[in-house]
């Protein structure tokens, strides 16, 4: 029942906004819808929390602790981002960057996008999962090119082509999965249902599944932004409107990673080997290291943080790849804190860029002077994302690194060096933007900074104290993923 609300609200909202999205009250509708979605997700969560995993609509939907926590997270960040996008988009409009029609497109697509993500998370059907992922691409690609500038077009095109091709590989993987499954489950509808696959995973044909996983990994991995498949990511993040960058970084990547992990569970069941894990660890490590070194060359602030997202997704992938209770726990925690922190950073970055009329870091200076809250939000968020205690990112990184230390000690030097380099690069660039002298202008509308500080407060909390119910929630999820 909650599922209908959960999926229905954004869908309806999307269609509604397709009509009224250009009106001046559209942002409020947008936020309201997102809030309703969030409420639905909370209801769903409570339900799951009280009476365990469930399936719905003859098993087409499946909710367990793993995805329900992602659902809540997605809905929450979707909501806060909509709050942020209100003033942000107003200011963009005020600067004459956007027309009414563009706003209409933006608002309706925003809702549809969250719909597709929620669908991808809640569905039980690997095929639908694929469809939803593809749809997520389709809904965002036009938003990336919203400004119609050459750069934004180029970014969108790359995003479209690369993710399209990638996702096609994922489809092939899904087909192979089905191919293997129908031997066991027989042809027809049930053979793609994750629950059923999970039940029989040990009987699935290993050779097929290993191939299938390769395709799935390459496919969904492209959307996760694993190096060397990440090339669309910085462009798309940099050129799209900031709220979209925020949800892309904070949510879409998580959802893609979710898809990978779901497939990994099946494959691990079928193969005795640790193939899937090793592949993921390899990709993860590569992404972390490459991203870290990319960081120091960035000039555009949003690209900078896009690369940091790649780094962190790599870290999560690595952790999931390691497997085991602690590592998975850490990965889930990292998903949460990274999502919160990174979106908060993008909020601050968005206003910072508007404030100084550019995304080029050398021209952004003295934020603390012109707009203290933005400045503090940015620098605190940066410290948090760099894994500085007492923020939560440190907690998860602590767990990941310490686990890596006594399970794959060879990997830790790379991780740590990468973290060090990333720190030098990011902090060296952010500090002069925040501090120093400037004659900056104020914003025409008051910036939305409640979301920033709400997120940062949550991250801080998670660094100092993880509420017990949240903890065993993660634990259950970790147990599910094995």
């Amino acid at each position, binding site marked *: 029942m909650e599922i209908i609300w959960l999926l229905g609200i954004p869908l309806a909202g999307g269609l509604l906004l397709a009509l009224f999205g250009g009106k001046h009250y559209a942002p409020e509708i947008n936020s309201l819808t997102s809030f309703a979605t969030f409420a639905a997700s909370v209801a769903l969560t409570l339900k799951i929390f009280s009476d365990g995993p469930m399936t719905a609509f003859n098993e087409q939907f499946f909710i367990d602790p793993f995805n329900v926590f992602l659902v809540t997270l997605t809905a929450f960040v979707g909501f806060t981002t909509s709050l942020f996008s209100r003033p942000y988009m107003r200011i963009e409009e005020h600067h004459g960057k956007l027309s009414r029609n563009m706003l209409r497109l933006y608002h309706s697509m925003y809702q549809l996008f969250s719909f597709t993500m929620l669908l991808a998370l809640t569905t039980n059907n690997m095929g639908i999962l694929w469809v939803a992922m593809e749809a997520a691409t389709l809904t965002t690609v036009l938003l990336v090119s919203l400004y119609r500038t050459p750069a934004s077009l180029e970014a969108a*095109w790359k995003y479209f*082509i690369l993710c399209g091709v990638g996702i096609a590989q994922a489809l092939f993987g899904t087909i192979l999965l089905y191919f293997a499954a129908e031997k066991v489950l027989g042809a027809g509808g049930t053979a793609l249902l994750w629950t059923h696959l999970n039940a029989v995973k040990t009987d699935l044909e290993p050779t097929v599944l290993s*191939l299938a996983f390769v395709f799935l990994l390459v496919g969904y991995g492209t959307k996760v932004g694993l190096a*060397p498949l990440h090339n669309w990511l910085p462009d798309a993040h940099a050129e799209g409107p900031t709220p979209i960058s925020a949800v892309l970084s904070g949510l879409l990547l998580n959802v893609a990673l979710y898809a990978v992990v779901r497939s990994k569970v099946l494959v691990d069941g079928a193969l005795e080997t640790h193939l899937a894990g090793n592949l993921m660890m390899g990709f993860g490590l590569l992404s972390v290291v490459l991203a870290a070194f990319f960081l120091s060359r960035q000039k555009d602030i949003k690209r900078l943080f896009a690369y940091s997202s790649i780094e962190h997704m790599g870290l999560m992938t690595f952790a999931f790849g390691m497997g085991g209770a602690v590592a998975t726990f850490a990965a889930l925690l990292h998903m949460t804190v990274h999502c919160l922190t990174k979106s908060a950073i993008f909020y601050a970055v968005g206003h910072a860029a508007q404030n100084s009329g550019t995304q080029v870091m050398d021209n952004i200076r003295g934020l603390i002077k012109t707009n203290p809250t933005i400045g503090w939000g940015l620098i605190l968020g940066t410290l948090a994302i760099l894994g*500085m205690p*007492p923020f939560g990112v440190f907690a998860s990184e*602590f767990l990941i690194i*310490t686990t890596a230390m006594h399970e794959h000690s060879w990997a830790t030097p790379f991780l740590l060096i990468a973290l060090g380099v990333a720190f030098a690069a990011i902090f060296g660039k952010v*500090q002069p933007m925040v501090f120093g002298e400037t004659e900056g202008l104020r914003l025409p509308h008051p910036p939305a900074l409640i979301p920033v500080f709400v997120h940062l407060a949550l991250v801080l909390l998670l660094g100092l104290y*993880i509420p017990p119910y949240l903890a065993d929630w993660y634990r259950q999820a970790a147990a599910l993923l094995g």
Partner: protein
Amino acid sequence: MLPIDYTLCVIALWLVLAMLGLALQGSPRLITRLIFPVGALASLALAATALAALGQTPNVAVLPLGLPDLPFHLRLDALSAFFLLILGAASFGISLYSAGYFRSMAGNTLGLLTFEYHLFLASMALVLLADDAYLFMVAWETMAISSYFLVTTDHKIPEIRSAGFIYLLIAHIGAIAILMSFGVLQGGHGDYTFATMRHNELSPLWTSVAFLLALFGFGAKAGMLPLHIWLPEAHPAAPSPVSAMMSGIMLKTAIYGILRVTFDFLHTHQWWWGILALTLGLATMLYGVLFAAVQSDMKRLLAYSSIENIGILIAGIGLAILFHANHQDQVAALALVATLYLALNHSFFKSLLFLGTGSVLHATGERNMGKLGGLIHKMPWVALLVLIGMLAISGLPPLNGFVSEWLLLQSFLLAPAMPQLYLNMLLPLGAAALVLGGALAAYAMVKFYGVIFLGQPREEKLSEAHDAGLLERAGLLWLAGGCLVLGLAPVFFILLIDNVALVLVGHDLGGTAASTGWLWLTPVAAERASYSPLILFLIILSGTLLTFFAVRKFYHGRVRRGPAWDCGYPAQTARMQDSAEGFGQPIRQIFDFFFGVIREVPSPFDSKPHYHGETHDRLWNLLYLPAASLVEKLSALIGKMQHGRIPLYLMYSFVTLIALLAFAR
């Protein structure tokens, strides 16, 4: 209520004060008149608690915070207690001083600063109490961040910004090393409480790895060669009370860390660790003091002198390790006591000196010693109190600096024969280096005091200089008094420190330290070495008075004032005194291979002669720039990957796919 509960209360109070600081941004008077004094009292309470806890058995606490499987463990044993004592005692003076010092600061800046200041205090206390890796790292990095923001308080100045950046970067790298060290220490149990680390038995290889990582990590915070580069940048950049706290207290937390890991977690010691620490320490000391002697910025000078003292501390630790590894525990205890005592002393006199520079800065707005001078007439209080600190840091009897140096030299001298023959050679060399360092420190300090406070004012504006206010004086007095007391009655404190030595090396000086009464300091045995600062002091004092009145009695006390004679040279101006550079010139000449010197010397025919000289740290070019450029090169290489062409990107995924397929089947 156990001592640890009291300490926790103090920490909580500090955190509350921090919050209040943010809340009361509007009313600076309230902040300076209320928050800082209360914080100071809290410090005092902390010091008292620590003093009480020094002799007691360790007591522990667990807070329901942190990671679900790893809540915050806290533990208060003699070692923590001792460093908490340092924290409390020094920060009492500093907070008192700050109450007066910051009164002229703008409201919102002051509010933030108050927040960071007390957060800094609390985090330092937590570092000392932490009993699991997670809490330790959290507190450690919080300490780094809060101090970073304190350093960059005046962030409008580019130098200060870069200083802050370097500081935080090196702190972070150090933290990473520390984390790795903990990772090694927990030895695969996956349990990160210190309790397990204490009981782990690691293989010699891994113990060495852990030790080296810890030395690196904590050394980075302490400012050990070659990781000292941030210190002379960051400490001067901060507002003086903060500099005082960083130099006086924060550096000690790094020493605490080294001691904690080396003597508490690692049970079997390799004697070469001792050699390593000793050499590094002495090198650091000489490096620091040489650079201190040639500085012309008074706070940089002090910062470098902090590097020197840190060097001595590390050398002392190395000595202790050496003896401990050779099972000569009594001498090891002696070396440790000396080290810890120096740590205590340094926290007093270095804070005192930094605060003194603060007052000078306040009164004149000038950090360059070349523009100061003659302030003893304008600010007698500060001059007197700083004089005490300066004598103390130069290691002159009967003040406290001398006691620790004396003890350290004793532990060099009383060392029984080592199994490793060449060590017997090396130790005297170490002693020689130590003594040389001490003498050079005196040189630097005479320069410091003489150029700032003595002579004639080098600038016009110095005539407006005013003495420090009441609260500042109170703070300075407390610290100066500490220097005196620690210098005159060392036996009490050494008996306290003995507990720490007992905890660390399982042996203490025992009764012998006070065998011949509290008046006499006899570390081993009366006939081997004894020193009674109080008697010495009394004799000097009474002697001086005696002579003074005797001269008055037998002759007269008549005095006339007149212009300085100066060999009858008529046209004396203030510019003819030695500038700071001038005073450091001999050092720069003798040890020129240490310094990268840039000088513009005017030609004899200049109509407007202009002299400019600066000394650089060679290591900067030798070590840090290459590292940075290496990273640059690497990222340039990797950057080529992102070539912007779709076919190329498609090719990446294509190749990846093919490769994986080939790999997977």
